[in-house]
């Protein structure tokens, strides 16, 4: 690997790591003031435990060997197959992919906010990583879903649809918050979290080119444009519908656009990211209201933003994919001279990920519920998880 490519992957890995604290503040600001530290800790816990699990066997099972259909093997257990630093390319790739593994379970924390026992979360994360993330990641990247022709540039199916549908399964087992929903305790925290997420997402998407090249630069542009378009769309919808252009609407739209462009970032160009962003912004702005009608308590809208945003972006590849622009070997989308083949493969890949992730998460949560329990008792739910679960208080007055 050339030094320029290596430098970009290492920088991108650090950018993706920074997204987890960004997500923590995005969620933490939206949460109640008495539960904000619990939310931060659920996120930071993922960057404590996942890097170790990733190097232990996560990377090996999800990527070694690359051509395995369903699951890897133990050849890279504890990275024992990397016997010398070499040009650094393998080490950089393992680290870069490990950052994705860390943030994916963290995405689910927003759904279970305000009521999940931290001990249950501490067990949920490693089990979910190996039972849901690792297999789906393998199938999409190198495995049978990828071999069939579906594409997922930086993790729309493998990360956002996967975590988004898992969030739904988790809250169905967990149940509703007894104290109900509350407005964000700190909108400034939400906004700084959004800024950090957007910044880090350039590493997430443009870094997924795994090279400092034209595809990476286009992924960078797409990350820039789709988020802006989705943020604008969300704000316009709520300004017309609810009467005010809100900060939370801007933040939510930006994240929805980032999620939607993730699977498409290296496959679309020109004005396509703007259309993808606009569609994602409108869809997600309405999707976050589904929970009120359907009755599931997805506290901070992981389903509405990540599941729907990821699904919309992944399916829109079937329309906007433009291999000629990239001189790429992937299929053309419907708007660029292709047939429905790619769209159907995208639908299949997401369908498989949805069913697997939902069922596995449901079983995992039910096992936890019937063994150690998944909910805090009533008193900490009303008095705050920060003090009960962590012995800390965010704000002293």
């Amino acid at each position, binding site marked *: 690997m050339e030094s320029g490519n290596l430098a970009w992957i290492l920088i991108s890995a650090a950018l993706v790591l920074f997204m987890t604290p960004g997500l923590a503040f995005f969620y933490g600001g939206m949460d109640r003031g008495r539960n904000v530290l619990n939310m931060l800790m659920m996120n930071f816990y993922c960057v404590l435990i996942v890097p170790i699990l990733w190097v232990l066997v996560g990377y090996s099972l999800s990527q070694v060997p690359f051509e395995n259909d369903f699951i890897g093997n133990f050849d890279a257990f504890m990275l024992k197959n990397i016997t010398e630093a070499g040009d650094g390319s393998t080490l950089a790739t393992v680290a870069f992919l490990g950052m994705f593994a860390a943030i994916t379970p963290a995405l689910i924390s927003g759904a279970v906010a305000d009521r999940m026992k931290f001990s249950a979360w501490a067990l949920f994360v490693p089990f979910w990583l190996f039972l849901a993330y690792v297999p789906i990641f393998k199938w999409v990247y190198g495995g049978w879903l990828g071999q069939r022709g579906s594409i997922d540039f930086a993790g729309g199916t493998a990360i956002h649809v996967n975590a988004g549908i898992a969030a739904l399964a988790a809250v169905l087992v967990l149940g509703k918050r007894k104290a109900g*929903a*509350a*407005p*964000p305790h700190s909108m400034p925290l939400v906004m700084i979290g959004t800024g950090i997420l957007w910044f880090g997402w350039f590493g997430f998407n443009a870094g997924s080119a795994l090279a400092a090249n034209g595809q990476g630069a286009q992924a960078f542009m797409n990350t820039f444009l789709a988020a802006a378009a989705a943020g604008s769309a969300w704000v316009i919808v*709520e300004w017309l*519908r*609810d*009467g*005010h252009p*809100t900060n*939370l*609407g801007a933040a*939510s739209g930006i994240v929805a656009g980032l999620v939607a462009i993730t699977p498409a970032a290296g496959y679309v160009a020109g004005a396509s990211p703007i259309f993808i962003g606009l569609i994602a912004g409108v869809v997600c*702005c309405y999707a*976050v*209201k589904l929970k*009120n009608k359907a009755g599931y308590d997805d506290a901070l*809208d992981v389903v*509405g933003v990540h599941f729907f945003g990821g699904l919309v972006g992944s399916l829109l590849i079937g329309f906007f994919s433009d291999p000629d622009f990239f001189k790429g070997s992937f299929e053309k989308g419907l708007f660029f001279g292709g047939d429905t083949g790619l769209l159907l493969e995208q639908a299949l890949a997401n369908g498989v990920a949805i069913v697997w992730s939902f069922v596995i998460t449901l079983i995992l949560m039910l096992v936890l519920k019937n063994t150690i329990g998944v909910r805090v008792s009533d008193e900490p739910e009303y008095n705050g998880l920060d003090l009960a679960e962590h012995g800390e208080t965010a704000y002293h007055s």
Partner: protein
Amino acid sequence: MKLITAIVKPFKVDDVKDALRAAGIAGVTASEVRGFGRQGGHTETYRGSEYAIDFVPKVKLEVLASDSDAQRIVDIITGAAQTGKIGDGKIWVTSVDSVVRIRTGETGEAAI
């Protein structure tokens, strides 16, 4: 001696403080409080969901005064805090048995 307690709109606090200071009033205690009166609460919309905010932010001002000054202070606060709109707040006056200035031990009106 009297204790004048006023609940006012937060954005009027500086006007009240300036008016009291201009009139030579020696001290005020201010606290951020929440409550509801005829104004009621309001709703805020986040991601399209409305949340009822039942308690409205207000500032509570407490001023100690001699009996002869009390009415003048009530008038000053009323004048400075009034917008004419619902939610301007209230002022009430209560009698005070004793006052001590901690630094000197002075008591009564000398301590005000």
